[in-house]
């Protein structure tokens, strides 16, 4: 599993745990990072810049470290 996918899973779990509007939050993260979360699969290659952007968005929007 790539780090990018791992992060995506953590984000999805957090959204579920917090009972948030999943579509909205996913959209916000997607617009911030320039990536559609649904397109991140276990086989998606790791890109350090993309991982950093996703981490930052997760932190800002979900307070996820």
């Amino acid at each position, binding site marked *: 599993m790539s780090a990018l996918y791992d992060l995506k899973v953590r984000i999805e779990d957090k959204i579920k745990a917090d009972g948030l509007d*999943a*579509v*909205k*939050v*996913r*959209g*916000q*993260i*997607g*617009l911030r990072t320039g990536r*559609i*979360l*649904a*397109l991140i*699969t276990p086989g998606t290659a790791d890109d350090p810049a993309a991982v950093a952007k996703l981490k930052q968005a997760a932190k800002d929007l979900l307070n996820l470290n």
Partner: protein
Amino acid sequence: MKWNSIRTKVLAALASCLVLGVGGILALLQYSFARNSQALASDSVAGAQKLFQVLEARETSKMAAVSETLMIDPQVRDAFAAKDRSRLLDITAPLYTKLKAEGITNWMFHAPEPDMAVFLRLHNPSKFGDRLNRFMDKEVVRTHAMVTGNELAKAGFAVRILRPFYDSKGKLSGYVEFGEEIGRFIKEMKSQTGDDYGLLLSKKFVDRQFWADSNAVWKRRDNWDDNPSFVVADKTTPSDSIIQFQQELASVPNRGKVLERFKTGDSVFVRGIFPIYDAARNTVGAMFVVRDISAVYESMRKTQNLLVALIIVAMLLSTVLVLTLLNRLVFRRLEHIIDVATRVVGGDYESEIKISSDDEIGQFEHLFEQFRCVFVDLLSHLPEFQNKE
């Protein structure tokens, strides 16, 4: 509040308009008030000068008429021709009392030239024999016709007439002079206009000792040192504080001059000054005019406050209206587009942009909806999505 949002920028622009509008109105009203007060001051000076000239002419005519009547009185004519001072005093003293009540304060008989000494002073009978040697004395001797004008003398600054006086045979007995204190005029001027006046005399034409003596006679404070170049001979207010003039009286132009506007307590005044000439056309004095323009000022302040309040209300209503319109026509629709875009990216491919109008934002909504369709169609062809399905 976001500082870079359109709302904030529009609000800032409207606030700037409000400040500029209020500032502009205040400046305009201030300018208008300055012009009005200048016009009022100018009107006061011109009006006072005209009134002074009218009073001068009226009193000169009155004194000329009295002198005419006097010359046809055989008793007065004979007594003066005989140079019988006590008889002349007995005959004229009752009349002087009546004339004095009418404002004629000075009455003199002069011996003929070359002596031209004072033969009888009705206003000070014990004093006679002195020579005044004024411009009017020389002029009446030169012309042997009535001379009129303002002249400074021991008794004060007065408008005077001086004319030859003949006996029953047509021989010159001497001269008769009547005079009225100019200080009396300012009381009448005040009663007619409501303005305050001050009669100033140039120190160049007033003898220091004479001034001290006059003040002692009239039981007035010696104000010689109050001003560098002039003395205040008379005024309509108890205080000298309104009389502020630092220049030479000779510098006052013929048509008068508007001075400054000033405030005392809640009252606002404008000052002006016009010259007063003696018989030889020297600027011996000036009339200081002070008009209370508090009513005009108060009216201007009320108008100013009303306009400022109206502008603030109008601008606040405009702000509410503009922001409401912007909200309805732009912001709310942009927020809808952002919301749909977010949801589509988040996986809700069924969200659609509702095109509410064909205005500029409506065109953008239409464009974005087409873009969304292309985006969703593109996503549906990706293997990740096909695998899901």
